[in-house]
């Protein structure tokens, strides 16, 4: 099993019982999980692959994956900002797939 496959299985087991599912498109998921591993190498932690991290844990804490914004984004759009974690309904295309706008407050963006 590759490192990405291990991460996939580990996170799936952890997040599915909480009601967060990986996007059914595995190619997208593996690409994003690879981004998480890249960020782990770069910064020492798995920050959101769809946001630019500062590289200082305190400033990036809200965007550690799963980020603080996943819950409200999945509630409102059925998907997190990255389209990594989604609801069952989103995967079953029972709700429209729209672009999820950035919810992170501007004052938290460290640049």
């Amino acid at each position: 099993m590759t490192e990405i496959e291990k991460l996939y299985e580990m996170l799936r087991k952890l997040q599915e019982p909480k009601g967060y599912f990986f996007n059914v498109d595995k190619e997208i998921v593996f690409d994003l999980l690879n981004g998480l591993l890249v960020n782990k190498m770069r910064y020492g932690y798995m920050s959101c692959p769809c946001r630019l991290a500062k590289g200082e844990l305190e400033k990036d804490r809200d965007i550690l994956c799963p980020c603080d914004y996943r819950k409200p984004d999945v509630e409102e759009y059925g998907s997190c900002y990255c389209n990594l974690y989604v609801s069952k309904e989103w995967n079953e295309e029972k709700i429209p797939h729209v672009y999820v706008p950035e919810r992170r407050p501007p004052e938290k963006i460290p640049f």
Partner: protein
Amino acid sequence: MQPPIILYTLSTCRVCKATKKLLDKLAVTYECTDVDLLKTEEQNAILEKIKTANPRGAFPTVIIGDTVIVGLQEEEIRKALGL
């Protein structure tokens, strides 16, 4: 004539990659920068530019002529390109 297109992306971001794919599909030429791959100084300079166009500094930022589009917004991108 096609307006100039500038794209700011992150190399790890899926929506950014999908936006590049869309521009490729539309057969337009564009200038793209993966901001996370830049050295700190270059990154800071580019971030200042991005923030002028898009105060939240979200990715991808697509600048088509005078129009700034944040995210993968196919309709808006097509509209800005007159397609």
